């Protein structure tokens, strides 16, 4: 059994604890630490008071300012006048007078299409309408479908959904394998489960999460690299 510490203001010295235990004197108890002036707290309080007094100045200035402010009705008139004076591509009543306009490009690239289901692929100065949207292609290779040279205008594309490059089988590619995840080689395995994610990120501090009044700590990765602020984000 270790001897308890008995150093209290240097009063006890040289006597063993067993001697103290046997004496009639009450057992020593530690003294409270001396009261040091809370300088940091005082300065912080002074800063808060200064901020409040500055706020008082701002509010008094605002009250003076508002004495000469026009009523809301004049602002409402300005809003109304501005809206009426400016054209709007999205408002039906104004569109009937515009047969051609910049909004046409969203539907038909400025040329008539046979049906509403048509979409146009506009490549540089030429547009052509197709019944299907062009696929993303690299040269003659397309992601997910065939592609003729007349129907695509791709400068650079890549198959974004294929992320597990080390996997020989495309079925091994999981869209959830992100940079922060390890991607073990799948050369010897042909199952999609061989692509696993594990969090390499080790967070020493907690995130302060938006819209939450608490902090979410660490990257909780059981199956996926989940967002630490998963509750509301």
């Amino acid at each position, binding site marked *: 059994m270790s001897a308890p510490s008995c150093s209290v203001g240097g009063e006890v010295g040289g006597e063993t604890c067993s001697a103290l235990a046997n004496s009639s004197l009450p057992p020593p108890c530690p003294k409270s630490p001396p009261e040091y002036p809370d300088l940091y707290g*005082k300065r912080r*309080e*002074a800063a808060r*008071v200064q901020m*409040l*007094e*500055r706020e*008082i100045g*701002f*509010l*008094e200035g*605002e*009250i003076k300012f*508002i004495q000469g*402010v026009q*009523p*809301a009705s004049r*602002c*409402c*008139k*300005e*809003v*109304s006048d*501005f*809206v*009426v004076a*400016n*054209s*709007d*591509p*999205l*408002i*039906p*009543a104004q*569109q009937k007078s515009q047969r051609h*306009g910049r*909004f046409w490009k*969203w*539907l038909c690239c400025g040329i*008539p299409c046979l049906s*509403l289901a048509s979409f146009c*692929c*506009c490549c540089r100065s030429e547009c052509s309408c197709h019944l299907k949207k062009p696929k*993303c292609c690299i040269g003659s290779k397309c992601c997910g479908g065939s592609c003729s040279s007349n129907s695509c205008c791709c400068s650079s*594309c*890549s198959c*974004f959904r294929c992320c597990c*490059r080390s996997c020989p089988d495309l079925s091994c590619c999981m*869209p*959830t394998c*992100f*940079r922060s995840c390890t991607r073990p080689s799948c050369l010897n395995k042909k199952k999609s489960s061989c692509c696993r994610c594990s969090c390499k990120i080790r967070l020493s501090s907690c*995130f*302060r*999460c*938006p*819209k939450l009044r608490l902090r979410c700590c660490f990257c909780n990765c059981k199956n996926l*690299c989940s*967002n*630490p602020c998963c509750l509301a984000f």
Partner: protein
Amino acid sequence: MSVSELKERHAVATETVNNLRDRLKQRRLQLLDTDVAKYSVAQGRSPVKFGATDLVCCRTLQGHTGKVYSLDWTPERNRIVSASQDGRLIVWNALTSQKTHAIKLPCAWVMTCAFSPNGQTVACGGLDSVCSIFSLSSTADKDGTVPVSRMLSGHRGYVSCCQYVPNEDAHLITSSGDQTCVLWDVTTGLKTSVFGGEFQSGHTADVLSVSISGSNPNWFISGSCDTTARLWDTRAASRAVRTFHGHEGDVNTVKFFPDGQRFGTGSDDGTCRLYDIRTGHQLQVYQPQGDGENVPVTSIAFSASGRLLFAGYANNNACYVWDTLLGEIVLDLGELQDSHKNRISCLGMSADGSALCTGSWDSNLKIWAFGGHRRVI
């Protein structure tokens, strides 16, 4: 002065502040002689009416594998950058739906993205408290990794929103969970100005959104969890020019009105509001009718004339289109054909006002434009 004297002064000052705020509130109420809706009805304004195919979804941008959190248009050339829970930024050609870039981010937990005015760089930020800049002319490796051109470090909380200063590729403004906004010099990576903070007059809770005036880029609005929006002048960062009260919940989104003299807000209290920056007046409240719980507003955008206010809500896929003059809902994009399947988290109007892009938790972006009546030439 002793601590007890300071505490007494603190109590007196707090009471004075509260009294002054009440006086200011009462004086403002006296000046609110009407709102935009009452004024417009009195003027006999006709309502906006949409036919079944007047506003259609003409593009669905598929490629993200997680919730879309943010999007931004280029000022020209019709490209969009989007940020998603999947940890990527994707740059889209909005006309052809094709992806021109897919950037894997160093930190997957991104919340915001923005295009530079010249369209050559994109910025993003999120839970890592850093705003990262990527050059679109950099070559990506086979994994889609593009090197970070610049990291804007200094915030002590998450970066909730970022926007480049109009026509200035070297400056952008961020808002943060550390209750501040910062104006950055992108070329040096240093802070030019800090708006708010612990001992400055500014927001007293997380700042969630910023919007810079297109007509006067020295002004920007911020929206915060302290239920206020504030107008700032970048030339005088020591205090907000004006504070706008009224909301009863977090202000999630702010956007300047097209005339640059007003701005809209969207809040957790379920309302959107229109404020005047010069007078501070709250000009209109846009509140859906019904007895149900107030559904938070996630994002807003104005049409080119300001007649339409698009507002995304946190329930299902609702995106109400408000007639800003009459204060009525004229359309719900969530009820149209091809609508999103989940919450709409972000909205953006193209520079020419001809198309609206929406981003959703269903991982897609959609472009909406006027369908209307077409004739074969």
